[in-house]
């Protein structure tokens, strides 16, 4: 006799047993009977994602103008053919302006970095724990691919989250999308959630490295300033930091490389071999 059938005759049972039946039946009715569900995004992780998005937004708004100015000055430096023209007073002025704007960017970042670092690391750590537990320790390679494939009916359109680094979105927008995707998702998109969780986690790792690099660069720049050395030109290291900030915060370096999409379903019932796993 099924549990639900037994509980249907609950009138004959003692009250305590009836309550136990109700408690046991609720997960069956809500769909938990379909198998163990992924616990990749508990409320704490969701809150971390939301907060990281807010902190990223504050950082973006603080840096947007400065980076735009830095871009304009760099363009002017190139257009004026200032490369190597150290004796030209006009070029020297542009170089000084570049150095000042670069310092301004680093200062703004150093003010915002502690909050950003805390939010990023917190999101990374909580996702790390969930990924390790849910996908690393609770799943075999086979159950992992079954989870990724999901239980989609034949011919139904698949949910395909964008893969990391290719969205071309600002960090804050990406987090808004992540949050909405995760917060609104149901049990049937678990396969996508595994991809999204991995995506966010790897993003956070990358952002964490960038923060460490930036802090290092701020320290180096401050030391140079203390030694009264002007930057002169944008060095490759400086350029790498600026590019990294633009890529992570504003998604400018990302190119949208779409995966091959499946053709429209034929609607025919697919052959199922007795050998199929």
């Amino acid at each position, binding site marked *: 006799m099924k549990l639900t059938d037994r509980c249907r005759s609950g009138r004959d049972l003692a009250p305590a047993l009836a309550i136990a039946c109700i408690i046991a039946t609720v997960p069956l009715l809500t769909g938990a009977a379909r198998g163990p569900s992924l616990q990749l995004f508990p409320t704490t992780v969701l809150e971390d994602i939301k907060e990281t998005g807010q902190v990223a937004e504050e950082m973006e708004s603080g840096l947007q103008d400065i980076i735009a100015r830095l871009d304009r000055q760099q363009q002017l430096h190139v257009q004026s053919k200032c490369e190597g023209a150290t004796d030209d007073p006009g070029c020297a002025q542009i170089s000084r302006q570049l150095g000042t704007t670069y310092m301004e960017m680093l200062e703004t970042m150093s003010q915002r970095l502690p909050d950003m670092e805390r939010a990023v690391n917190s999101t990374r750590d909580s996702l790390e*724990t969930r990924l390790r537990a849910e996908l690393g320790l609770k799943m075999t390679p086979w159950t992992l691919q079954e989870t990724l494939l999901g239980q989609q009916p034949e011919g139904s359109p698949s949910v395909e989250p964008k893969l*990391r680094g290719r969205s071309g979105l600002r960090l804050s927008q990406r987090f808004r999308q992540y949050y909405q995707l995760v917060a609104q998702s149901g049990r049937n998109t678990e396969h996508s959630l595994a991809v999204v969780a991995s*995506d966010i986690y790897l993003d956070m790792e990358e952002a964490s490295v960038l923060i460490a690099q930036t802090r290092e660069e701020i320290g180096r720049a401050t030391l140079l300033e203390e030694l009264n050395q002007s930057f002169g030109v944008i060095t490759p290291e400086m350029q790498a930091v600026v590019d990294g900030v633009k890529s992570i915060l504003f998604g400018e370096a990302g190119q949208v490389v779409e995966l091959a999409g499946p053709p429209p379903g034929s609607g025919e019932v697919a052959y199922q071999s007795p050998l199929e796993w």
Partner: protein
Amino acid sequence: MRKTARSAAAIAALLTALFAASGCATTPASQCELSGTRDLGASIASAKSRLGEGCVAHFDRYMDQLIDVAAGDPTADNKQAFSDFLLWTSDQGLLSRRQAQETWNRYFNIKFVSLRGDYNNCAQTCPVKARVMADMESELADKERGLLQAALDQESYYRADRLLKETELVLEATCRACAAGGR
């Protein structure tokens, strides 16, 4: 001297008898060739006949040739034709049931035979992640021949292609998380 010659002849006779008993080893390669037909049914019949005559060692080559023949006349029914053929090899005891399953799933299933195991991913998959991914890439090439070229199942093939990419991303993250847990 005569005694030595008699011993050598006896050994030669014994060896000949042993080779004859082992079947496969005595079947010359030329006798294990499949018929040159481009019809899948006839090719499968030819393969069954050869396998029955002791050419089991040529099974992988037969499979390869049959997939080529199927690609020449691709249809969804080819999946079943291969399934029936592999079930036959299993029933005849030429392949184990597991080998037959692995072969069919390697060519015609979205899921990857290369990504299997009984232990958790942290312990089993992560230490050999690069090899697993290389094996999956190689299996995708077989799925291209089976699903896409022989069975015209584009939808399943593209899903397998995406599954490979998703697996790469998810394993990258999961294995980093596993490693971080061991710090």
